[in-house]
């Protein structure tokens, strides 16, 4: 378990991270979310001991002793690779630094899996952005770390490779690894994470189990689809806080009962379907941020 207790970091007068608390359970995937510039990378660098927090502490398994480097895998936001050496040498060097025994077979197997088997001797600079990201990911997990910290791992990957990455993260989770990853792409997090923390302007907006947050923080809405498309603009919708999207109208339940809404609409039109709409994580985030600002 990793406990982050009240960490803060200020650069000159800019507060990058303010009093951040997070609890990361072992064997789970923890999503760290926020818009660009929210403070995710600073927080991750503090977690990685690359920068020292001005205040607060980070505890691994209850102690302030950091696990050895070969227990942690880290993928920085931007490509952290030597450009002028080969793919194989890059991986060998980092494997050597992390004391991986006999790494060559492992390197070749991972490169094969990521469809880079033929690029063993290519210089890193010769690889595409996506392939460099894959190489960097291999470098992060090659030494079989217990903790895997990924800063924007999906950036630069095409949909096929995004799927592959998700598959591997699932496998790693099954193997009991603790995975922390940051992203500003909420849909990725929603599909993958067990727990999340939402951060904005360096401050924690909310944190906890994804399922619970989705249920408790999401705005409850009804998705209403009329039989006649012309009823989508019916004036009866103006009685509610509603939004029209793709042949349906989404009505916020807040302050009304579901039955009342349906009864009101039935008086004015024929309804094809009415269902409870699941809020997306992005909607929850926007709702919470707007709530905290007001």
């Amino acid at each position, binding site marked *: 378990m990793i406990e982050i207790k009240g960490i803060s970091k200020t650069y000159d007068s800019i507060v990058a991270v303010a009093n951040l608390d997070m609890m990361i359970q072992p064997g789970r995937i923890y999503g760290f979310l926020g818009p660009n510039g929210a403070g995710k990378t600073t927080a991750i660098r503090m977690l*990685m001991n690359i920068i020292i927090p001005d205040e607060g502490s980070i505890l691994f398994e209850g102690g302030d002793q950091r696990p050895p480097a070969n227990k*942690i895998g*880290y993928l920085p936001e931007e490509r952290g690779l030597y450009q002028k*050496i080969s793919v194989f040498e890059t991986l060998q060097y980092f494997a050597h630094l*992390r004391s991986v025994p006999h790494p060559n077979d492992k390197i070749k197997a991972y490169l094969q899996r990521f469809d880079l088997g033929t690029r063993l001797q290519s210089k890193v600079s010769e690889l595409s952005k996506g392939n460099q990201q894959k190489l960097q990911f291999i470098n992060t997990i090659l030494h079989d770390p217990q903790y895997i910290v990924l800063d924007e791992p999906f950036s630069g990957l095409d949909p096929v490779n995004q799927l592959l990455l998700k598959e591997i993260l699932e496998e790693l989770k099954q193997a009991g690894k603790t995975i922390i990853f940051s992203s500003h792409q909420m849909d990725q997090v929603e599909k993958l994470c067990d727990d999340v923390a939402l951060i904005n302007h360096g401050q924690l907006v909310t944190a906890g189990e994804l399922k619970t947050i989705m249920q408790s923080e999401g705005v409850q809405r009804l998705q209403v689809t009329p039989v006649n498309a012309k009823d989508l603009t019916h004036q009866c919708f103006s009685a509610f806080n509603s939004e029209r999207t793709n042949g349906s109208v989404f009505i916020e339940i807040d302050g009304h009962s579901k039955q009342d809404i349906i009864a009101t609409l039935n008086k004015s039109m024929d309804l094809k379907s009415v269902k409870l709409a699941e809020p997306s994580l992005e909607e929850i985030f926007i709702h919470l941020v707007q709530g905290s600002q007001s």
Partner: protein
Amino acid sequence: MNAWKIAWFEYRRRIRSKWFLIGTFGMPILILGISLGTGYMAGSGAGIETKNFGLIDETGFYGEQLSLVLDKRFADKETPPFNIAVSKGSFESLKTQFDELVNEKTLDGYFVIPYDFISNPVLRNYSRSSSTFRSTDVIESELKELLIKEKATSLQLSDDVLDELFFDVDVAHFDIGSSQERETEELIADYIAPFIFMFLLFLGIFTGGQLLLRAVLEERSSRVIEVLLSTVSYNELMGGKILGLGLLGLTQSAIYLIAAFFAGSYYDLSILTPAIGLLYFTYFILGYLLYAGIYIGVGALFDSEQEAQQAIQIITFIAIIPMVLWTMVIENPNSTLVNVLTYIPLVTPFFMMIKIAVGETSIFQIVTSIIVMIISVYGSIRLAAKVFRTGILLYGKRITLPEIYRWIRA
């Protein structure tokens, strides 16, 4: 342990690069080529432009005599440094004509031998620029000899006596306790050897320093630094880099010294003794570590190589001082100025190397200079570590001197 792994990685990838081979072997070849080439050019007269001078001879005698001896002196030269056209007459009558010739650039200048030259031997020179200044030396010495001969003749000394009076003095050089005269080549080699040692030291230290700067900038700009710092500590990373590139510099120095040893043996010269070799490596290590601190500190502060190189220029200017003053150090190794400069840490290794190779130093100077260097290295590396730790991850931010001061004090 991790520092060694980093050191080995840095060493291995640089030593295999073609730039290391080009730098190590190409640089001495280039320097040797330039030296030999410029020597040949100077000897061939290709760099000399023949100047044309006029000469107004009021005595009606010395001008012609001077012209004859100069013709004799420059007889074997394809390009004589100057030609002299003699006109007998008074300065007053010829002045306007000669001034015009100079102004329309037919002449580079003209001389006047006044009528009372024998009693008041002052040769006057009129010219547009100072480029004629050096030519007066030759004319001065030839005229002096003519005057002496003229005075000797007036004293009715015979030609035999005159020949007896004019002779050259040679100096024969011997080593202490040796009866074999030293050859000129050997003397030149002895004179230049201290410079060569200093130059090799300079080359080794700054090759290592520059590579260190580039290595830090490369890791900083490619963000590899973050992956490394999640794996190793700041001190291991910095130490590994300094060690690896220092070993590279040592390899380069060893190649040069081995070459110097064999070259010396071939010509039967004992330029490189074990003591000089040992002190060379001592000053190399201390000098390299001092500059390594500076280079790594600067590398941690800048995003681009151009900015970093500009910042490092000031330091490089100081380090060039020994390159400019080397003849002074060889000829006056224990003058007050040289002794003071010897204890300025940025140039200590270079000055000491010259003094050691000349054989004009003492155990006291060696020990004290090493102590000065050790203290400076400690300071440099300590400050570099503080700057490196704070500055290395501050991308895209212009760092100010007060900020650096704060980091150092923290």
